[in-house]
């Protein structure tokens, strides 16, 4: 297989160079020259307006994946720190790698991320590939995609996992599109088919009412994003004598080749409000029965006492009682905290889709027929405006606050 540039028609316009995610093209003497970095992805052929690039000697679909080896997990960072989901992936990846008898590696990309090494190794990684560079200070899809593509192409893992975070769900599809492989979104269970040695990726569809198990055929790596907080994160014992530094590989990049098309103008967090509700162990949620925006203060008081955060049903958000990032359910966020306290939420199927995998559900509602009681572990038929203040008082008393 070979890739050729027709020098008689090439104008040296750089269109191909600009689309190449593998930095395989240079313009030399006004002509495109393709070097050994090329993986024959074909992006330059699509981009060339003069039909000057051609791949010759295309083989049949090669189904030999023997050169792909190992499990690789993406350790997503934000502001220099690895997100929990990275460690969850490492823990899960460890099981998969052991089952396959292959090594487990992590990819750590960001700015000033070196402090995370020690902790990352505690979750069973055999190796960390680290790119520590200021260009990766912010979560920019295009340059992250480019660097991930290069790493995956170089180290050829058979399995690549990333967190199904907002960034992961936007970034990883780009990577899969470039590499030309399958990607399964938002998995909640992973396993290895012992016989075929392939990854079985299970994910909820139809709002959590159907589970689909998906395999990647005819392409590697097998890529999946995994829903945060579903997999357990568990440290493994490390021999103290082990030299961690030998397990770290720093990858230098040519900064000039990572120019983003995304100009980040500003980042804002909602003042005094925790909107990252998927990250909390306790969610106290309010629905139509809350009756107005003021009453959310009551729920917030309870949430604060439990170290949790306030959630809401669609009805409450649509009534403008609370902002959209708090919404749980089909058109909001999918959450799975340890405890979900539903106050004045009837439990429409769309809401249940977003929270029914919570470890423990407590429902407080006036209507004994409310569907929320069908999936709750503990149900209280009563007035939330009576029950919640009593509970707050009880907790405060228990802590000697009153």
């Amino acid at each position, binding site marked *: 297989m070979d890739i050729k540039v027709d020098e008689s028609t090439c104008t040296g316009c750089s269109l191909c160079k600009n689309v190449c995610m593998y930095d395989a093209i240079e313009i030399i003497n006004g002509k495109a020259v393709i070097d050994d970095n090329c993986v024959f992805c074909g992006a330059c052929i699509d981009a060339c307006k003069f039909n000057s690039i051609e791949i010759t000697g295309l083989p049949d679909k090669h189904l030999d994946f023997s050169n792909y080896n190992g499990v690789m997990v993406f350790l997503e960072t934000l502001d220099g720190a690895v997100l929990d989901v990275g460690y969850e992936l490492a823990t899960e990846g460890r099981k998969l790698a052991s089952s396959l008898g292959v090594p487990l590696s992590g990819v750590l990309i960001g700015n000033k991320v070196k402090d995370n090494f020690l902790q990352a190794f505690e979750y069973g990684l055999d190796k960390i590939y680290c790119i520590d560079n200021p260009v990766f200070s912010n979560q920019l899809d295009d340059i992250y995609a480019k660097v991930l593509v290069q790493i995956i192409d170089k180290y050829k893992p058979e399995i690549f996992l990333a967190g199904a975070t907002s960034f992961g769900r936007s970034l990883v599809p780009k990577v899969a*599109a470039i590499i030309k492989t*399958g990607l399964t979104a938002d998995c909640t269970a992973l396993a290895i088919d012992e016989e075929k040695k392939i990854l079985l990726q299970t994910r909820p569809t139809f709002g959590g009412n159907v589970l689909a198990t998906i395999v*990647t055929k005819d392409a590697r790596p097998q890529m999946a994003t995994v829903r945060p907080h579903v997999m357990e994160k568990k440290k493994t014992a490390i021999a103290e004598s082990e030299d961690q530094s030998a397990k770290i590989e720093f990858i230098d990049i040519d900064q000039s080749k990572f120019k983003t098309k995304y100009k980040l103008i500003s980042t804002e967090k909602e003042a005094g409000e925790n909107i990252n509700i998927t990250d909390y162990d306790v969610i106290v949620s309010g629905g139509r029965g809350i009756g107005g925006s003021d009453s959310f203060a009551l729920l917030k008081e309870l949430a604060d006492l439990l170290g949790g955060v306030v959630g809401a049903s669609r009805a409450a958000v649509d009534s403008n009682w609370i902002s959209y990032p708090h919404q749980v359910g089909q058109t909001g966020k999918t959450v799975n905290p340890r405890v979900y306290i539903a106050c004045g939420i009837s439990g429409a199927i769309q809401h249940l889709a977003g929270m029914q995998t919570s470890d423990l559900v407590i429902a407080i509602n006036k209507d004994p027929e409310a569907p929320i009681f069908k*999936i709750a572990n503990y149900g209280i038929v009563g007035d939330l405006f009576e029950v919640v203040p009593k509970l707050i008082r009880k907790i405060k008393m228990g802590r000697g606050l009153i």
Partner: protein
Amino acid sequence: MVDIKIIVCIKQVPGTTEIKINPETNTLVREGIETVINPFDTYAIEEGVRLKEKLAPLLSQTGEEIETIALTMGPPQSGEMLKEAIALGIDKAVLLSDRAFAGADTWATALTLAEAIKKFDDWKLIILGKQTLDGDTGQVGPELAQKLNIPFIGYASSILDINKNRMTIKRLMEDRYETFEIRLPAAISVGKDINIPRVPSLRGKLKAKNEAIPVWDKNYLNLDQSQIGLEGSYTQVIKISMPEHHYEVKMLEGSPDHQVDELYGKLKELNIV
């Protein structure tokens, strides 16, 4: 001559996620279920229509025109959904339909959409819903953007500014909003915080009724069977099942004080308080 085209990619989905599985064939029972425009796609349609309403007067000053186009890949009956998009203010619609497209995963879907979009000139913006109600992946948008080699902004919560060449756009991440300036053409996906979709208009409905929706098949798109549908997909569903939820519901009875005491006890047992 239309100078700017906004393409809205939409999908027809079952109106409910209460899906049954046929235990004998282990396939989804989809008959008898009403289909609707994927809820997130209704925000995409609305945003496209609003952008046109906003940009059209500005562009007309320089004699330029703007057009919105709805695109879907699906079975022939998806044409009805495209008519709904027209009733909501979209200018025209194209249906990508071919037996050979069936079974496509997100990769093959993105490829097919990309080839269709390349048939238009002067498209500047592609808008999608952030995910579908049935598949729930959210992958088609970024994959499509990559195939077209354009920037992609997911979870867009508002377009702060836009002109022919660039836009300023805010996206919602887990714990923050990020505002970007990007050059067009670009693709974005939108959630429900971006707008409130309008109700169709009577004139829109009347226009939609008489609209003939062009259907493009694989031959028209010059696509080979191996690139599309099940064959062109890198992922394959090997099993579907109903999740098993075991809920042991315990109702806490008695007076409110007693209920709260009991609940507090449970929370204490579980080390939550």
